[in-house]
């Protein structure tokens, strides 16, 4: 296990958002964190990353990390691709990438191989990029550095179908080297990438197991995710 979460609880603004989330993330492959809107998927990632106060236990590679500063966790290889990209709009593409460099020899070869467009748009302000191009910047920022686990939050949200496929291809390639905890609503992407799955409901873990078992069970998919098991099947 690269990540073990036990009884994670988060209260924000008077709301009890996470009420005892527990699951493990395997040291290889993609673990999909699923559930309907508002069940606490993004909050779980932010709590692991130390962005919101939380109680319970989070072990990263065997070490308790709850309460550690975000920047220290990231320096330890826990990389984060946030929902809505969060690129720095006033900075150029090159500056967004330069800011993310954590090692003396950042892997620009990999970034430019996966996203050749970013090389051409290096001098363009990130705020003027399309949603898909901004997602490239957001993923490229973490790929510059060696990582031990990627937390990726809804990478295909709001993207055109062709771009969704490109993002999935990139994540598939990345997951060959680094385990990924993926929050994703697009079941076609989950079906393509995920080896394991965790389902949250009302701030609690209600299912964990093999992704294929969940997506192959029409009743479970409908009751847990609110969609038919064939959703996203091409």
């Amino acid at each position: 296990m690269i990540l073990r979460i036990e009884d994670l609880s988060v209260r924000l603004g008077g709301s009890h958002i996470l009420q005892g989330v527990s699951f493990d993330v395997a040291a290889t492959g993609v673990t999909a964190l699923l559930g309907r809107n508002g069940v606490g998927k993004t909050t779980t990632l932010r709590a692991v990353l130390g962005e919101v106060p939380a109680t319970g236990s989070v072990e990263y590679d065997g070490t308790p990390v709850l309460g550690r500063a975000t920047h220290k966790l990231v320096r330890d290889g826990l990389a984060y691709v946030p929902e809505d990209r969060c690129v720095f709009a006033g900075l150029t593409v090159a500056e967004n990438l330069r800011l993310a460099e954590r090692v003396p020899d950042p892997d620009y070869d990999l970034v430019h191989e996966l996203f050749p467009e970013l090389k051409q748009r290096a001098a363009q302000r990130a705020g003027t990029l399309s949603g898909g191009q901004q997602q490239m910047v957001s993923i490229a920022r973490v790929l510059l550095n060696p990582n031990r686990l990627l937390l990726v939050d809804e990478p295909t949200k709001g993207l055109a179908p062709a771009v969704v496929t490109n993002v999935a291809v990139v994540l598939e390639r990345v997951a060959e080297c680094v385990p990924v905890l993926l929050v994703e609503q697009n079941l076609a992407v989950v079906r393509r990438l995920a080896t394991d799955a965790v389902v949250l409901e009302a701030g609690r873990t209600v299912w964990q197991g093999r992704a294929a078992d969940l997506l192959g069970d029409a009743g479970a998919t409908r009751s847990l995710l609110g969609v038919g098991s064939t959703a996203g099947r091409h």
Partner: protein
Amino acid sequence: MSTVVLLTLTGLGLAALYFLIASGLSLVFGLAGVLNFAHGLFLSIGAYVTWSVVGSWGLLPAILLGVAAAAATGALVELVLIRPLYTRHTEQVLVTVGLSLAGVALLQSVWGADARVFPRPAWASEVIGIAGAQVPADRFLLIGAAVVVLLGLLAFLRYTRYGLIIRAGVENRAMVSALGIDVRNAFTLVFAIGGALAGLAGILGGMYFSAISPGQGASLLIFAFIVVVIGGLGSVAGAAGAAVAVGLLQQFVNYYGTAGAGDVSVVVLLAAVLLLRPTGLAGKVATA
């Protein structure tokens, strides 16, 4: 014509002072989200430390010491008083207001409540004839210093890694942390830079007004806050543009209108900008 030239250069001199105070204030608020009412204290520290040693050290070393003392005060305030309160904004404002008041009392207890005559280079007391106007040379000193600071700050923001971190942090400091960067170091740095620039403003203000007093920082701070809001939080270039607008407006309205009308006109300008463009002239983007 000569009156217009004199008013313009005097307004630009005043704008230079406002810019020196407002640029640091703007970066501090833009990056760290701190509304620092104690910023005027940094200004006074710079002025009084310079005044204290100028007789024995000479003017230039005294200025450098004054700027360094103000920068150190800024960094110390951030480390000791502000850092524990980054998630508690109300307490943060109370601390800076309290420090501002305590700072004035401290200055009075050390140097007295009376204004002190501030030294200036002999050439700054001369007047220079331009287009028929007799312009005091100290205006050019202020304008020159502000231009150098503006160019230096823009170069710092554009070409250094810390400048990059500050520009990014003004947009989204949580995301800067999520890239593995300890943004608190940048907070301390902008407080130190802001302190240094305020200290320099205090020294140049002493030369401009020919005197310093414990309350001078607080009175200049009001206009600096207006400049920050008009210019856009976190924008150095916006602060420069807003400072010029405020300084010129104040001078011209004070001269052609009634006494005090210049200050009122600045408040009207502030209200107009807030109504028409609430994010200020440059918005919340650290401009490089």
